[in-house]
């Protein structure tokens, strides 16, 4: 079963960059004239790591992943669960200003 969850991206009306978070501004040119759009919340892990010495206030091990979603947009997410390998698919959700990734449900 393919996840139906969606992720908000945005396209900058000035420089056409695509990015997130969709509430902007555009990270390339600073414009607030951006059009949000929805895409699949499934992304591909480009690299992931487990921090054994996290910053004060965080617990070890803390897992982070660099993920690519639609339109080659990349994001950094906290991994909930076991560390995915590069190339694995994960489902992304946004919680306040932070993205979380978990292994995509098998289907």
């Amino acid at each position, binding site marked *: 079963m393919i996840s139906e969850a969606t992720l908000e991206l945005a396209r900058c009306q000035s420089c056409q960059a695509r*990015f997130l*978070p969709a509430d902007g501004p555009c*990270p*390339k040119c600073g414009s607030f004239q951006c059009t949000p759009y929805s895409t699949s919340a499934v992304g591909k892990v*480009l*690299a*992931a*790591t*487990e*921090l*054994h*010495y*996290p*910053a*004060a*206030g*965080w617990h070890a091990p*803390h897992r*982070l992943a*660099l993920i690519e979603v639609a339109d080659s*947009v*990349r*994001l*950094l*997410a*906290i991994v909930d669960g076991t560390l995915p390998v*590069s190339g694995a698919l994960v489902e992304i959700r946004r919680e306040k*200003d*932070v*993205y979380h990734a978990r292994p995509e449900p098998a289907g």
Partner: protein
Amino acid sequence: MTAHVASVGMGRFGKRPEGLIDLAAEAAGLALEGVGRKPIDLLVVGSMFAQGPHGREALLPRLAGRLGLESASGFRVDSSSGTGGMAFHTAALALETGRFERALVVAVEKMTDRTTAEITRDLAASLHMSEVAAGATMPGLAAIVTERYLQRYGLSTDVCDLATVHARAMAVTNPNAHFQKAVTPAEVAASRAVALPLRLLHCSAISDGATALVLERGTGPATVLGLGQGFDALRLVDREELTSFAATRVAARRAYESAHLTRKELDVVEVHDAFSPFALIHIEDLGICGPGEAPGWFEKGWVGRDGRVPVNPSGGVVGRGHPVAASGLAEIGEVALQLRGEAGRHAISKRPKIGLAHAMSGIASHNFVTILGGKAA
């Protein structure tokens, strides 16, 4: 208005009992002795944390008072781990105006009086706030960069181990280096995981230390030939690529242009290897070798003391220790020592004529390249 490095002062990097001001004053004193205590009319001081025993120090006036330089002009700069490079560039550009005769540049950090978790949190101030909000740390993002580099060129972590072995072998000859013991590839590979693929011995240490140098009008073996700096997107995901640092490429291009020379004329290089695999990326970005060729340079020993282009004869950041602000200035100081024939046991095999020092802020968000050498004209 030409300027040259007339003197370098450096105390030992490592775990030191002294506080921030004493560390800075020690290095400054050594640099001032080197020019026979000639008058200083500009003081440039850099520190990321300026951490004193009761909080942030008013570092610039405190040091001016301590050194008896109240009649000088002064600047305090901060560019996280690139602070030392920024401090030097600030002084060099100020001297270029012709308004100053002789500058004392000091970069200092006190770090070992806080826990690793506290330092890790404080160092993350050089990252984008959205990355900090996700619990990112310097080693965490450096691990992602390293993983991408290894993937791109189909490499194992052996090349990272080799870069650490090189750094530590160089550091053994530098009496001011934090680490005085060489390591084997097996020891690096067996060190504990920090953020894989990075292990403890791939990461720079938390160190105390200071570097100072005197920059004065005129020429010498360590004349300022070229300066360049470059920014990149602070947020890692906004960068065009992760296996090369645009901030270095831009800074290097500007430095080569201003010096009217190319990377082929470099006799010695100091790069900011906050994590040992970054040394590979840096020498590629400086154009010393092509993309993906750096592992071969390390494997063949071309970065050694008698190699094609000796890299980090001081031990680099991984070998010398990393009092963050002081590292960037230590890199410039090392190149100056090599050019001036004052490097002692860490001198490269053939006395160099032209050298380059590279300093990196955070994960290469703002980098500085400095080219020093004997003045041709």
